[in-house]
Each structure stands twice: as C-alpha cells, then as structure tokens.
C-alpha cells in the first residue's frame, strides 16, 4: 500500500518535471554559493598584509619567507613595492611616507648593496612596469598577492639616519618587522604596511603597536575557532571549553604580559590563517546544512507517505461501506483511465510520425546519391538555349516584323514565330552591356502598321478593328 501510495503521489509527469527543475535550480544555487566562498572576494578597502614564515636568528643571517596579499597592483604602473626589514617609530601608521614619514627618522631599515645585492631588500614590481628588469621579488599579481624571501642580517644592524650618519638599530630593544612602501619614491598608501617580527631565543617583543593588536585579535579569533573546530570534530557537535583550544594553539609564551600576544614566529600555522577567514569552517557549515536538509527531506517524505497511505486506507474503508461513493469512485477511475489512454495514443502517433520521417530522410539520402551518380548530363555543357526560348526573349518589335497580324483569324500569336529562327538569334549573342536586343535595335519600318490590335473577329472574317497607324 505504501508503494502504491507513493507511486500515485509522484506519478504524474508534470510534477516530475517540476521536481527536476527545482532540484536543478537548487544545485545551481549551491554551486554559486560555493564558488563565492572559494573565490572569497576581498573587501574594497583591502588592507595589505604580509605573512611571515620563519624566525630570524638573533645573531647571524637568516632568511624569512614572505607572502603578501591585499596589495594594490597597477598593470604597467611605474615601480612597485619595496619590501624592507627595519623599525618604525609609530606603529599606528604615522611612520608612513604617505603621512609624511621620512626614512632615517620615522623608519629605518637594512640597506643593501645596489651593485651586488645580498637580499636584505626586495623590489616587487608592478606587471609590465618599465623597471621590471630590476625586480628581485617577483611581480605583484593582479589579485594583489606576491611572495619572496628576504634576508635578515641579525638582531642588530647598521643603518643611516636623516643626516646620513651611521646609526645602529637593536631589534632586541625596539620592535622590528617587515616594512613595505611604494617603490622608487612613489607614495602609495595602499601598499604601506608594517608587520612586526620577533627574533627567537629572546624574551619577547613586548609590542604595544596598534597593528600588532589588530593582528593578535585576529589570531585570538582563529585560536578560538580553530579550537572549536577541533573539539567539534572530536566530540561530535557537543559544546567545548577553551581549555582544549589553548592546548591546541600551543603558544607557550602567550601567558606572559599580554594575553592577546600571539607569537607569529612560533606559530606559523596560526599567522597565515589569520589573514583570511578559514575555509574549513565554511565548508563544514555547508555540509552541516546539506545533511540537515537531507534528513529533514527524508523525514517529510516518509511522513507524507504514511499520511497519504493512511488517508487512502481510510478512504477505501469508507468506500466499502457506502455504495454510492463506490460508484462515484469507479466512474472517476474509468474517466482517468480513458484520459491516459488518449494521451498514450497521441504520444504513440507522434513517435511513429517521427520515426517515419527519419526513415524517409535516410531513404532520400541514398536515393539522392544513386540518382546523382547515374545522371547523364554532368559536364560543362554547351550553354545553348532552345531557339524558341531565345525567340521568346527577343524584343517584341523584331517579332512584329515577321508576324502576320493583319489577317486576324488563324494567326499565330504575334510574339511567337513558331519554328522560325532568325539569323541573329541563337547562342552567339554575347553583347554584355549593350543590351542584347540592341543588335536588332533599328526601328521596325513596319511599325506604322501596328499589328498588335485588339481585333474583334467576326466569324465571317471581316475585321472591324481600328488600325492605329500612329501611336497617339
């Protein structure tokens, strides 16, 4: 009973089509949503961010891997981005050249040898720029990302102040980091950033930069959500506590001083993720929703099935009791049967017709090929027209000369000379542009005897026509 009930509810073709349409549009919507999540459009005012991987050593040279995102790339623009390692005086942004900051006083960085660069500075060029040849840090891609490696000479480095005097910067005392500014002296606020970097084997960078706060806030969020993720996976959707979170993030020295300090040097996994909302979360949410929909859907389907089945059961019970109702039911079923029969018959006719047409088409193709091969008149031919056809087209004036219009009865039509072929006719008239008929263009001397007259022919042969001898 259940199967018949279900069969009947979902049996009709239009309903099937509607369901199919709904499913397809749902799938499409899902696809669009997924691509949006994956594409992850950056907001209009994207702040440039640099993620650093690796930790610089306090003594000796070390290499850091950098990857930037959210930068502005100008196709064919002049210059690009300088990536430097150094110190800024006011991490809230006052050091920036676009805000009036000056190198040597507001910010200081490691210099490099111009002729034999060691890699303490990176020049990331705009694509298609005129100075692209000088870039050692690659290109800023159209989506604002770049990557490269920079060398750090150590915790202490020598640089120059405003008055070109040598001065030393000690990163143990001040906060150093990765500086990015517009290249070649072009001030570009969109590409200015400072990313603090701490050295290993030292106590801590007690940073109080606003930028660092911003960054560490993000780090905290990531921590929490990262922790959530992990605990959810392990406990299957139940609540969690932050304890597990702290353990998983594993920042050992975060307890000291600022609770929000996240040491990017020791937690490379967290920092890069901090710049984007984690993809795994949205995927999970998507799957959760899908599962819920499926579960709900199946529950509804089963409920419907049972409900309808129950309704039909009750109906047949009632029918068994009342003969009038049974009569009505029988009629209804009969009519429905006839209707479906008609529909099927029509469909069958259409299919038969289609099949016949297809067969006919195949037949034609083969017949056509055979007929073509068998035909005799292939070849360039002579281009001759039957003489009477030529005569048909030649100017009526000329034909008038040869016709016998005057007598009336029994005359051949004035345009047609029967089998008479005049000398000029035939396949030799080849006068393009002069009007073929011009070959016989002289005015017919017989014209004044106009032969084309509407003659009333009396049976006795007299004609009472009016010859118009001149054209009036």
């Amino acid at each position, binding site marked *: 009973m259940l199967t018949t009930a279900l069969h009947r509810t979902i049996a009709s073709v239009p309903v099937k089509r509607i369901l199919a349409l709904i499913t397809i549009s749902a799938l499409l919507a899902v696809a669009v949503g997924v691509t949006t999540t994956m594409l992850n459009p950056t907001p209009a005012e994207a702040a440039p961010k640099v993620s650093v991987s690796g930790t610089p050593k306090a003594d000796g040279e070390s290499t850091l891997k950098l990857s930037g995102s959210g930068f502005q790339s100008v196709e064919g623009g002049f210059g690009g981005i300088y990536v430097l390692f150094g110190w800024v005086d006011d991490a809230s942004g006052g050091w920036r050249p676009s805000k009036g900051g000056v190198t040597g006083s507001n910010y200081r960085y490691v210099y490099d040898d111009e002729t034999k660069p060691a890699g303490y500075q990176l020049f990331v060029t705009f694509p298609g720029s005129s100075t692209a040849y000088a870039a050692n840090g690659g290109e800023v891609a159209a989506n604002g990302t770049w990557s490269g490696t920079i060398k750090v000479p150590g915790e202490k480095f020598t640089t120059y102040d405003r008055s070109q005097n040598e001065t030393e910067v000690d990163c143990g005392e001040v906060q150093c980091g990765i500086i990015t500014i517009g290249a070649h002296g072009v001030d570009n606020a969109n590409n200015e950033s400072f990313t603090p970097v701490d050295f290993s084997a030292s106590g801590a960078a007690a940073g109080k930069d606003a930028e660092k706060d911003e960054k560490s806030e993000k780090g905290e969020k990531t921590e929490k959500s990262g922790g959530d993720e992990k605990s959810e996976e392990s406990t299957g959707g139940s609540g969690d506590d932050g304890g597990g979170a702290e353990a998983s993030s594993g920042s050992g020295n975060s307890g000291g001083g600022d609770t929000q300090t996240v040491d990017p040097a020791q937690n490379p996994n967290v920092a890069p993720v901090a710049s984007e909302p984690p993809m795994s979360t949205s995927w999970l949410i998507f799957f959760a929703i899908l599962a819920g929909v499926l579960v709900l859907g199946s529950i509804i389907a089963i409920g419907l099935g049972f409900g309808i089945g129950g309704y039909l059961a009750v109906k047949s019970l009632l029918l068994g009791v009342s003969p009038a109702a049974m009569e009505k039911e029988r009629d209804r079923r009969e009519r429905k049967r006839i209707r479906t029969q008609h529909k099927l018959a029509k469909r069958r006719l259409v299919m038969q017709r289609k099949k016949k*047409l297809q067969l006919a088409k195949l037949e*034609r193709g083969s*017949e*056509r090929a*055979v*007929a*073509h091969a068998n*035909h005799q*008149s*292939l*070849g*360039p*031919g*002579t*281009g*001759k*027209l*039957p003489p*009477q*056809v*030529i*005569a*048909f*087209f*030649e*100017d*009526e004036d000329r034909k008038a000369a040869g016709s016998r219009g005057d007598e009336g009865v029994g005359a051949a*039509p004035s*345009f*047609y000379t029967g089998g008479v072929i005049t000398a000029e006719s035939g*396949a030799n*008239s*080849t*006068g*393009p*542009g*002069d*009007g*073929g*008929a011009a070959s016989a263009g002289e005015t017919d001397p017989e014209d004044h005897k106009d032969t084309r007259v509407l003659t*009333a*022919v009396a049976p006795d042969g007299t004609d009472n026509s009016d010859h118009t001898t001149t054209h009036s």
Partner: protein
Amino acid sequence: MSIITVGRSAVRRPEFPVAGKPIISVRGAEVSFGERTILAGIDLDIRCGEVLAIVGPNGAGKSTLVNVITADVELDAGKVFIDDEVEYSWSTRELAMRRAVLLQDIGMAFPFIVLEVVEMGRSPWAGMRESQHDDLIVAGSMSRTETVQFAARKFTSLSGGEKARVALARVLAQATPALLLDEPTAPMDIRHQELVLQQARDYASTGGAVVIIVHNLDLAGAYADRIAMLSDGSIIADGPPAEVLTADRISDVYDYPVSIVADPNTGAPLVVPVRAGRKED
C-alpha cells in the same frame, strides 16, 4: 557562392523540354498538419507545352500543392518527380534550373533597382555557359512584362501591380522548363492581367510548362489548356476548360450558384455568378 556549391561540372543541366512530356509529376501526395488533412492523395502531371490552371475554393489546398511541388512543405506520403527524378535528389540549384516559382509575397528587404531584381533570376546559371544569354533574357523579360521604363527605379518605390510584374520578369528570366505562378494577377489591372496570361501562353508555346493558380475562373477558362479543380484536398476534375467548367460542378464546389456563358469573341466558358438584380426600375 562558388565555394559553397558543388563544382560547376557536377551540376546537372535540364534537358530541352519535349512537348507533352510531364516535367513535374505528383504521385499520391498527402499532407496533414496535426489532425487536419490538407492534401489527400493528389496525382497530377504537369506537361511541357501546356498551361495548367489550378483552381478551387479557399482552403482547398492550392497553395499547399504548390508548396509541395517546390519542397517548401514536407510530404507525409507520396513523391514528387521533377525532370524524371525524385525531387529531393536534385540540389537546390539544380531545382532552380528546372522550375521557377512566383509567390504572392514579393517584398524585398533592401532597395535594389528593378534591373538588379530581374538579374537575380539569372542566378542559377551564374558562371555557366548559359549565362551568355543573360542580357538578352533580362531585356526580353522586362519588355514582355512592360517594366522596361522602371529599370533604373528602386523596387520598393513601385506600386503593387508594378512590383508583381517585375517579380514576374524575374521569374521569366530564370528561363526554366517549368513555371509555377501563385496568383500572379491578384494585384493587377485588366490590361496587365491579360498581359500576364498572354505571356504565360507564349511561354508554354516555346515548350515550357506553366502552372497558374488563379481565383478568376474566366482567366483560367480563357488561357489554360487544362484546368485542375481542387476541393478539400483532392482533385475532383482535370481536363480542358470546356469539360471542367460546368455550371453544376462549379456551383457544387464553390457552394454558390453560377451559370456558364460563352465568350462572344472566343467561345471560351465565362462564369457568371447568379446575382439578384438591383432594386431599380
């Protein structure tokens, strides 16, 4: 056009027309649109050297029959033979060398001049030896349809009847063994109606086959060698005008009483509908 048509030597040319030979034959043609049967089993021969008039009331299937002959409508059953071969064994160009068609719709999308329009009729023969006659044929067909004075005028600036004559000139210029004219005289005045039918007769005299669909039974009776009367999708009469145009038959088929009178000049049957006289003295 040359790159998209078969090589010229592969095009099959029509034979010279032989009087009396059927150049177009329809055998058992059946056409139905959905449930309605338009043509029910038509057998018709169109012979060279004669003028065949197809007449019948509205909706009898005359235009559909012409469409079947020109392959604009698919047959449900039956075949059409043109020049001894099944119609679909000819390519479009080869068909155009054998039959020329004048439809009722003669509009043009762009303002070509009349001469250019008539020259279009020579297009099936482009690049072949027959095109050496182009100028003669174009000039001849224009003079036969009395359209020479329009030669340099834009086609779109002509009146309806003048356009119809230019279209006829184009069709004549195609110089094919068979001519199919679908109500060519509909927009024309008396002079030009007679002119067109006269030209059709002359054309048939040269050995071509001319098929005309006319509403005007008098014209059919006067100029046709044979009349085929269609009614409800089948041919109910096929023969010389004197045989076909009888008062009983016409009254029956057209569902209106008529009487037949002989033309005082030629003796051809004239159809006169029975009318009530005017209420005057």
